[in-house]
């Protein structure tokens, strides 16, 4: 992409519009957002705010390239390059996700037979970190998140919701990614573990990571977020 991000933002979204067309329901149109625009800078945490159904999750998924876009641009700074998620090739987007843009989803997508420790270590191994070292880092992170050590060697399929979410957070945060997208990272956690996640997010911010997320938990949002973007205004335009 030739367009560079003006200034120092890590993420620059502008004129973003999206409407789902449901072909199985006689082509019903489901507008999500129209003309959405905002920026995220390194070291800040920005929350997407607004009631359920306002399009927060959809917006986050568009930034990650999981949902497609009808109009507008999603510029992400990738080293010396600027990539438009809305217009780049699938292969370039896969590379962007591998190096620059991380995503902590709400639920862990369980992979059969893979242990919690390996699930967490995988992104680091993908970065080229030696296996032993990656697994050690994964263990330290799981310990910080209070996941009992007896669970580490087990596949997370049978874990509780809170345990799975901690594995998911560890996987999403273990490697350095300059841009992090987080969808309700603390939804099923108890108070103690919420504090741990707050600490992890603060660490990321200090490391210069830009974070865009959905934080329903007001306590967490008030502590970690620097700004809230009201998604309702984008939805109303749609």
């Amino acid at each position: 992409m030739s367009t560079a991000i003006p200034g120092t933002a890590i993420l620059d979204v502008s004129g973003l519009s999206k409407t789902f067309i449901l072909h199985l329901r006689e082509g019903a149109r489901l507008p999500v957002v129209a003309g959405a625009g905002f920026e995220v800078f390194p070291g800040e945490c920005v929350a997407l705010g607004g009631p359920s159904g306002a399009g927060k999750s959809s917006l986050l998924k568009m930034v990650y390239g999981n949902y497609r876009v009808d109009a507008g641009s999603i510029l992400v700074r990738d080293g010396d390059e600027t990539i438009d998620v809305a217009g780049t090739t699938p292969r370039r987007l896969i590379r962007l996700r591998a190096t620059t843009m991380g995503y902590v989803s709400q639920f862990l997508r369980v992979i059969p037979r893979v242990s919690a420790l390996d699930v967490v270590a995988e992104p680091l191994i993908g970065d080229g970190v030696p296996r032993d070292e990656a697994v050690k880092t994964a263990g330290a992170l799981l310990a910080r998140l209070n996941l009992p050590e007896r669970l580490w060697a087990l596949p997370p399929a049978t874990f509780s919701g809170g345990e799975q979410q901690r594995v998911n957070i560890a996987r999403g945060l273990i490697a350095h990614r300059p841009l992090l997208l987080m969808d309700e990272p603390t939804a099923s956690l108890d108070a103690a573990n919420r504090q741990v996640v707050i600490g992890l997010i603060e660490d990321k911010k200090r490391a210069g990571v830009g974070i865009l997320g959905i934080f329903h938990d007001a306590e967490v949002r008030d502590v970690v977020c620097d700004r809230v973007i009201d998604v309702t205004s984008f939805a109303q335009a749609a």
Partner: protein
Amino acid sequence: MSTHDQPLLIAEGLSKNYGARIGCRDVSLAVHPGEVLAVVGESGSGKSTLLGLLSTELAPTAGRVSYRLRDGDMRDLATMGAAERRLLMRTDWGFVRQNPEAGLRMAVSAGGNVGERLMAVGWRHYGKIREEALDWLGRVEIEADRIDDDPRAFSGGMRQRLQIARNLVTRPRLVFMDEPTGGLDVSVQARLLDLIRTLVAEMGLAVIIVTHDLAVARLLSHRMVVMRHGRVIETGITDQVLDDPREPYTQLLVSSVLAA
């Protein structure tokens, strides 16, 4: 541009007619080293015909397939001699078939099935061949003491794992897979999928996998191609096509399964 950014295989305008019936119509795609591409669609959509064309088992009515050899040369496969193409299939390519009887020699021992591919590439030392075969049986989780049994004594899942060992022992760069988990019990499928996923990542294989199972595509592939009536109707990153399908037919496919 590093060689990694250059396609390993390129198909341009591939078509195949069976008399008046169309198997495949004007399909173009590219696969890069280390990339897993899933081809999905229902029975009769042309996905198996496409796999046959890409692997040169079928001759196209129109279009061509090019492949980058280990020396970096991009070659039109139609211009290669039969012997050269056979060598390519035995060394640089693998083909894992849905029906293991079609991909294995059923009256030859498990060790022989794996060793045969090595002999085809010039291995002669019996002890070394057996040692390598043993190593590969271990990697696909077949007990060492089954090495002299023939696959007729194996379960469906074991046969499929043996077929994978036979294909991967020569360290190919590209593997074609045609419904590799089709017809297996769900628990057996999960084990096989995990094995394929691990080996593909460890070896950096490029894979073109044909499947009607969207969960298999989700677990294994980076990119997806959706086929209907012999045409490619939608392509993209796998999670994008599955989570935000655009075409009416893809929406129907995705909505017809439980949580793919």
